[in-house]
């Protein structure tokens, strides 16, 4: 239902480790003359330099759903805040959620799939991560949150590029690619970027999953094979059997959900003229038939996981066993 989807209020999540330039980006978004009004959910008051009466302070209260699973976490305060904001929905065009530097983006994202009211009226647009070109490599070593923020991102601002050499920049970009081959990476200084590269991304919109072409930089994969957080991509040109695929992916995400941060797939099922697309956050999966395969399109099923400590051989074997 594209019509229903477009009437939802878009939500952008801004993440980034302390000092990377997240608040600078937020202030830029708010001050640009785009004629749009945003409700902003922040964690530290006083940092926003722009007058905006729709700034709401959040508590970052994460709670576990009552299903006994550690990855099924939700930001309860966000449900409350968004419920409240929706009561004045004519007042703004979008919602921007700034998380603290130490936050895991997953509970924020999951909130939009778990709560019915929030999911009916708003749509997660993209997770945007601001990373410090000079210090990201160190943070990836010592801060698991920084790693999750990179792994989770749809858009990454590799910021402060003026403080590093060309070689250093290439190196840090390779590290990012080893973890997350899909995010659109933009090189920035002082978080300067065109607003349309950050907002309106539709990263969680099934209709906008066009292709899954992991952008593996030459050697990136091999070089960083010791990374505990990385991506896994598998493909087959043989049609899949939906009766094999759905039980497999469901069992996999139930069992390994805590270790799978994001997943995405474009699938060709046997005797099915339509592309089937899906995307997931930990255990939460969202999928649908998208559109007919075009004549000029190779009917290749491709699936990708970004996660930690996953058994690549077992994943591949499992995926290929879904061939019809």
């Amino acid at each position: 239902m594209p019509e229903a989807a477009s009437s939802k209020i878009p939500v952008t999540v801004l993440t980034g480790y302390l000092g990377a330039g997240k608040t600078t980006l937020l202030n830029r978004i708010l001050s640009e003359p785009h004629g749009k009004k945003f409700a902003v959910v922040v964690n530290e008051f006083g940092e926003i330099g722009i007058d905006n009466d729709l700034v709401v302070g959040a508590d970052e209260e994460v709670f576990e759903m009552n299903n006994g699973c550690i990855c099924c976490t939700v930001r309860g305060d966000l449900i409350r805040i968004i419920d409240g904001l929706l009561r004045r929905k004519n007042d703004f065009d979008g919602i921007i959620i700034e998380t603290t530097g130490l936050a895991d983006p997953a509970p924020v994202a999951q909130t939009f799939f778990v709560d019915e009211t929030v999911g009916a009226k708003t749509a997660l647009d993209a997770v945007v991560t601001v990373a410090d070109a000079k210090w990201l490599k160190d943070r990836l070593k010592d801060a698991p949150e920084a790693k999750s923020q990179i792994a989770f991102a749809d858009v990454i601002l590799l910021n402060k590029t003026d403080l590093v050499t060309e070689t250093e920049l290439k190196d840090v970009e390779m590290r990012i690619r080893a973890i997350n081959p899909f995010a659109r990476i933009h090189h920035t200084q002082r978080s300067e970027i065109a607003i349309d590269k950050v907002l309106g991304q539709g990263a969680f919109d099934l209709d906008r999953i066009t292709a899954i072409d992991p952008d593996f930089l030459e050697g990136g994969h091999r070089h960083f094979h010791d990374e505990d957080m990385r991506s896994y991509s598998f493909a087959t040109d043989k049609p899949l059997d939906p009766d094999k695929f759905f039980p497999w992916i469901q069992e996999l995400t139930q069992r390994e959900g805590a270790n799978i941060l994001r997943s995405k797939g474009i699938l060709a099922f046997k005797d099915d003229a339509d592309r089937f697309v899906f995307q997931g956050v930990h255990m939460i999966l969202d999928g649908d038939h998208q559109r007919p395969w075009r004549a000029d399109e190779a009917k290749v099923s491709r699936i990708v996981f970004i996660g930690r400590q996953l058994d690549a051989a077992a994943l591949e074997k499992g995926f290929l066993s879904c061939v019809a």
Partner: protein
Amino acid sequence: MTSQSSTPSSLTSKLRRLDLGGAVVGLRFLGATAGFVLGEGEIVLVDAEETRVEAHKGAVLSVAGDDRRLLTGGDDGRVVATTADGAMQALFEQKGRWIDQVAAGADGTVAFSAGKTAHFLPVKGERKSHDFPSTVGGLAFAPKGTRLAVAHYGGVSLWFPNAQAKPEFLEWKGSHRGVLWSPDMRFVVTTMQEAALHGWRLADGGHMRMSGYPSRVTSMAFTAGGKFLATSGSSEAILWPFASKEGPMGKQPSMLAPRDVRVSSVAAHPRDEVVACGYEDGLVLMVRISDGAEILLRAPDGAPVTALAWRGDGGALGIGTESGAAGLIAF
């Protein structure tokens, strides 16, 4: 199972239609006057005439009250009491905070919360405050006395604002949102973030898990005398039996007024064993619990019913919807 009754009787011709111009988020009768609270800050008081007042500059986040005063909490940081004549009094104000919950106690006492902090306002004397472990999701006075049930993550705290003692904690994992005491004060029930209710039997701390809903329960009410707890969230009104000392455990709920759309709001008649059920398509029925007999009160118009309230004497019902189309029906 289809309804066995013949064509349901209808009282839709008696419905007085109101166009309030904004989503109704709460509704209470102040004597003979119906007070409709709109999400964007206005209150419309309806008797023979319509009086419109602006209680909040901003969104109304919570609504409570007794038969004299309508209490509202807003994102403007204010708690406002409004009477039937349209007079308003700000009971509290804290700029930059949201008043998430309000509750009305016996004899004019008031409670409200902002984030993790709950406040108690006696009629005379000092305001009392308490910080709970996480954001307050629901607030309810016990039917008698000044004990408050405070819902938050991980359970419910029972707080005596006038006592020094630490609140008693009823634990159950998950996020608890709405909270309600049974009229006999034997049970406390919460609506959860999950599509379920949780209850505690206060005598022995026994747990009551009420699940099986297709969606989150957002509206619940004890029927006259407390025999049943009527709830929304399913495509019929689900009524849990609370007449026995054990509560509903091991018993099947009654399911009334089944349709193919979900119940979004319920209100129990103050005297008779009758509930009003509003659905997500705007239809409203009155249902007799004993035999399930239905009377149609409002035809569907597509907008979910967001608020239902009976007049104190049970002689009239108010109806509010998300589109602002509302109604009053006197019997």
